């Protein structure tokens, strides 16, 4: 596993952990009488995410061999394709996020303003998951032009 793959795996795990964290917090925010449990959960999750981030940073930047190359042309090609996939998916996500609330609450409905940053953050995390998954998928399928 090279550095690009490790980085993608790290981003994927952090993004999934943050989405899970957000779902639990969001759920406890709107459950009456569950605020205390939510606060305790936040502390536990924050330590968990901190540990994963610290471990992940070591995992990403640790060189197995001194001769290990940080980034070659093949990695750049893989990253370029992944960015392309991520950008395209981002538009679809933004489009969905602007229309779905209208279908859920109706034409004359409204949504709490606190939901806006949450929606943007979730869209960002999903785009990051797609980017990382695209990198890992390309390595597992074998990049075009990889064979000599």
């Amino acid at each position, binding site marked *: 596993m090279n550095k690009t793959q490790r980085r993608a795996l790290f981003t994927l795990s952090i993004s999934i952990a943050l989405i899970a964290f957000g779902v639990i917090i969001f759920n406890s925010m709107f459950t009456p009488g569950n605020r205390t449990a939510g606060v305790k959960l936040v502390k536990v999750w924050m330590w968990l995410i901190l540990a994963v981030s610290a471990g992940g940073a070591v995992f990403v930047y640790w060189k197995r061999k001194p001769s290990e190359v940080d980034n070659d042309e093949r990695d750049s090609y893989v990253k370029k394709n992944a960015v*392309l996939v991520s*950008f*395209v998916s*981002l*538009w679809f996500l*933004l*489009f969905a*996020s*602007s*229309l779905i*609330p*209208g*279908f859920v*609450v*109706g*034409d*004359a*409905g*409204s*949504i*709490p*303003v*606190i939901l*806006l*940053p949450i929606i*943007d953050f979730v869209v*960002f995390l999903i785009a990051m998951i797609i980017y990382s998954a695209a990198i890992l998928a390309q390595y597992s399928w074998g990049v075009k032009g990889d064979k000599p």
Partner: protein
Amino acid sequence: MNQSQGESWIWFFLGLACFLIPGGVAVFIAYDRGISFAPVLMFTGIVIWGGLFWLFPFICDKLRKGKEKVTFDERDQLIHKRAVMAAYVVLWLYFVAACVIAWCIVGPHGSISVNVMPLTLLGGLVIFTFTQGLASLIQYGRGDKNSEKFNPKKI
């Protein structure tokens, strides 16, 4: 002025109007008569067309490969790539600003109409196109200056 530079100018002026006018009409219809098939289809078309148009030069480049005439070379590709990247950074900043402004206007316990959401996305599309065109023009402008500076005929 090469073809890409000309396209940048066209997009800078006409592109904004092409998305802004039909997009505004679609949102107005949705706001006036409620969400129905026609405005949603119109809005979908504009967002997909406008949002993915930055892929067009790359697709054209792939299709043109093999022909002798070069209209979109590696330099153009690099400029276009950087412009798209700059536009995406500005797009994210715009969405963050939209959240903060909405928060400031209605307060932390307030709420906003769902009809504002497509308008926000339309604004994002306009900002994206504008920034992309502007970034391309700035880069071409810088390139021209450099080429003038290092022009061997002048030495």
